[in-house]
């Protein structure tokens, strides 16, 4: 089974169960490399359906203060692309079965060598890539390499994406379509954007592929609401905030993800 199939299977299973997939984001190496492995292992056991693993970059321009802070700390702890790939492999060796998506900015991947990066990502056990500064127009080479390696290349769409472009992005994305809930950077928000449901419906009209919504989703209530519209819910900054504020980061992360998981379960109209 390749990465694209692995991701498809999880969404399909959840769809059959009538509930959305929960996809936490966590920064590899935060607050330090061994602890981040423990945290990710714990959230995998607490109800994550897929996991997005952040590869730290010095200039994360799509990220708000929380994720900026986490990547900065991770870099100070000696994180690199090479270590991120090694840690991905370690997570697989520890028995994580969920699809793993590596999220990173383009430059570290280019410096590593795009072909080498994509090949080794798959070797390490990753199922897909999310590259927020690689729009469709610049992605031809990455698309080919990902296809050859059986890795999903997940594209993002945002609320201001025009209809024709949304269709093209949906055609190209593999694994799922990442809907950025708002025009803005990552980070917890007190309210969901008012036009989010309409945005998800616009995307639904142009593709059969799973739709996962991220950016700004912080609370179980918000997640439950989004889960009613979309096939997947991505939660990042709020999870990192929970870890940052806690004296028991592993337990706090697991508790946070479990709470989110429960929120979906109770929203489900269908029995699990």
């Amino acid at each position, binding site marked *: 089974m390749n990465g694209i199939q692995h991701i498809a299977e999880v969404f399909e299973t959840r769809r059959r169960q009538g509930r959305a997939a929960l996809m936490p984001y966590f920064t590899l190496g935060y607050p330090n490399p061994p602890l981040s492995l423990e945290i990710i292992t714990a959230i995998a056991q607490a109800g994550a359906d897929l996991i997005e693993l952040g590869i730290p*970059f*010095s*200039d994360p*321009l*799509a990220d*708000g203060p929380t994720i*900026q802070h986490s990547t*900065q700390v991770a*870099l100070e702890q000696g994180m*690199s*692309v*090479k270590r991120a790939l090694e840690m991905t492999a370690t997570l697989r060796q520890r028995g994580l079965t969920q699809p793993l998506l590596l999220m990173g*900015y*383009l*430059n*570290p*991947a*280019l*410096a*590593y060598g795009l072909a080498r990066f994509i090949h080794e990502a798959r070797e390490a056990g990753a199922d897909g890539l999310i590259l*927020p*500064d*690689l*729009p469709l*127009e*610049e992605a031809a080479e990455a698309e080919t390499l990902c296809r050859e390696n059986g890795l999903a290349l997940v*594209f*993002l*769409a*945002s609320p*201001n*994406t*025009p209809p024709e*472009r949304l269709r093209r*992005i949906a055609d190209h994305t593999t694994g799922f379509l990442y809907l*950025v809930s708002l*025009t*803005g*950077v990552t980070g917890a928000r007190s309210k969901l954007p008012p036009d989010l449901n309409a945005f998800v419906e616009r995307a639904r009209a142009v593709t059969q592929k799973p739709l996962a919504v991220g950016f700004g989703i912080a609370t179980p209530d918000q997640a439950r609401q989004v889960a009613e519209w979309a096939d997947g819910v991505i939660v990042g900054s709020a999870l990192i905030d929970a870890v940052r504020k806690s004296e028991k980061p592993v337990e706090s992360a697991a508790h946070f993800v479990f709470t989110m998981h429960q929120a979906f379960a109770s929203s489900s109209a269908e029995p699990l």
Partner: protein
Amino acid sequence: MSKKFGPFGGQFIPEVLMPAVEELEAAYNDAKHDESFQRELQELLQKYVGRPTPLFHAQRLSQSLGGAQLYLKREDLAHTGAHKINNALGQALLAKRMGKRRVIAETGAGQHGVATATAAALLGLECVIYMGAVDMARQQPNVLRMRLLGAEVRPVESGSRTLKDAINEAIRDWVTNVRDTYYLLGSALGPHPYPTIVRDFQRIIGDEARHQILEQAGRLPDLCIACVGGGSNAIGLFTAFLDDPQVRLIGVEAGGQGIESGHHAARFADPRLGRPGVLHGTYTFVLQTEDGQIAETHSISAGLDYAAVGPEHAYLRAIGRVEYTWATDAQALNAFQTLARTEGILPALESAHAVAEAIRLAPTLSPDSILIVNLSGRGDKDLDTVTRSLSAGEHSYGRLS
């Protein structure tokens, strides 16, 4: 409009900005061919900015160097004291035409911030300037000027707290407020179409200089020199001469404390750190670690203290049309003093890098050769930095004479 210069350039940006750059490209193409837009811009450049700026034959400096005849393109005499106003006015007019009420910009030395705040005041636009906290400390006068002009200056405390981080924050603001905000990028970098737009608004420097040297000396120059941070003043000067193969073009990067020290902003000079990569939406030469993290840069001049270079410069270097070299902090300081004492002009420390290269090269050239230096800005903003560096004793006044 091509999105790339050879392999360099492109649009490596979050999806949310794609509609914005497409809207910008369409609006710019429209404005470019609209006579009333061009007329309005020309009139402002003439009556508000004070263009054309003079091309001045620096005879005492030429004589003392004993070689080429140096001509200074006096962008320092443009309103607000640097070439930045050419682009800021052009883009602010464009923003207004696009119906955007709010402009944001990054600034390093503060010259682009001042130019943007000025254009925004003139055209009645709301203006927010992002500036690294380190740069705010070393360019205080410009911070005060921006605030007096009615702009809000937001200190940037992330990363190295210089130009790179100011651009990160400006982009984050743009991502958030993309529907009503115009990002007025200050140099020939960033995602397409910015490198092209900025070049087009700055090429008036070279167009004027070409005309002026033909008038004054009766022939084209042998050499044109400009400093290169992002590279807008350089591309502005060079563009007019690209099709004249007999004119040598030299860009001068910030050598900081020397290339070997690793503390510099010379993207082309240091193969350990300077390699093609992506920063702020464009594929170009970027100072970076082996792991692809953006490297910390150093220059005495805030305006050159940046990890990436405009993509067209990467291309012009690759095809061999423009040569790139560097000058250190010390050489720039020496050039600053030399120009002050021989010609009565205090150049911006950025521009002093170009002057330094001219001082180095002129004696090797014959007295009938002609060299144009782009004096991209004036040095008032740098008095504090210069005074402190000189009193620290690193670069005594006496070394010059």
